[in-house]
């Protein structure tokens, strides 16, 4: 089985992150690795760099990782986490400029077919309802 791009979902809300991951798994299946994180680590809304870093590392593959985020802070904190990855891994991780749920589903669909990271992100970013 060829490797597939992994998906990481980062939301201000732990519930949203988990829900989006559940939807991806239900619609796309298990062959795409999905990690998710949300909340500020104290049970409140927000994002946590350490959690994002752990999520990326848990599904990292040289094939690539597509990160879906919701509002601003999720993006900047994800950027920081990516910069903290060791050994140039950050080069294989990309934040997609797409709505978090739809983007995750489209990215995972494309990833399941074996597409490379730029194609996976492009599919997520091209989505328009």
């Amino acid at each position, binding site marked *: 089985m060829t490797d597939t791009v992994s998906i990481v979902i980062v939301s201000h809300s732990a519930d949203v992150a988990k829900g989006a991951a559940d939807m991806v798994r239900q*619609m*796309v299946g298990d062959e795409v690795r999905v990690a998710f994180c949300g909340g500020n680590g104290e049970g409140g809304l927000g994002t946590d760099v350490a959690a994002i870093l752990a999520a990326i590392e848990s599904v990292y593959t040289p094939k690539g990782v597509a990160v879906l985020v919701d509002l601003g802070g999720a993006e900047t904190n994800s950027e920081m986490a990516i910069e903290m990855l060791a050994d140039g891994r950050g080069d294989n991780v990309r934040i997609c400029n797409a709505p978090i749920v739809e983007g995750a*589903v489209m990215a995972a*669909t*494309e990833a399941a*077919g074996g597409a490379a990271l730029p194609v996976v992100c492009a599919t997520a970013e091209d*989505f328009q309802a």
Partner: protein
Amino acid sequence: MKELEPAMQWVCDAAVIRDPTGLHARPAVKLTKLAKTFEAAVEIRADGRNDWTNAKSPNKVMKLKAAHGEPLHIRAAGCDAEAAVAALVALLHRDFVD
């Protein structure tokens, strides 16, 4: 219409969409995923429309408006075209149940 090399032919079939909501998000994703497992070019068309859509493109399939009770037209061209069409028809016949 896609230009085909002389040696290639489209294999065509159709199957009725059974889901009351038509071809909505979940079936669209499953259809795309299945289409991608084949080497052949695979295209679908809603009944009554002229334009064929790349069945391997999640965005394009998601946007396709195909209604309940209508046949979804499928065509494929390439080495495993017959298998591709058969697989997609079977998917529709079992109403996208895995």
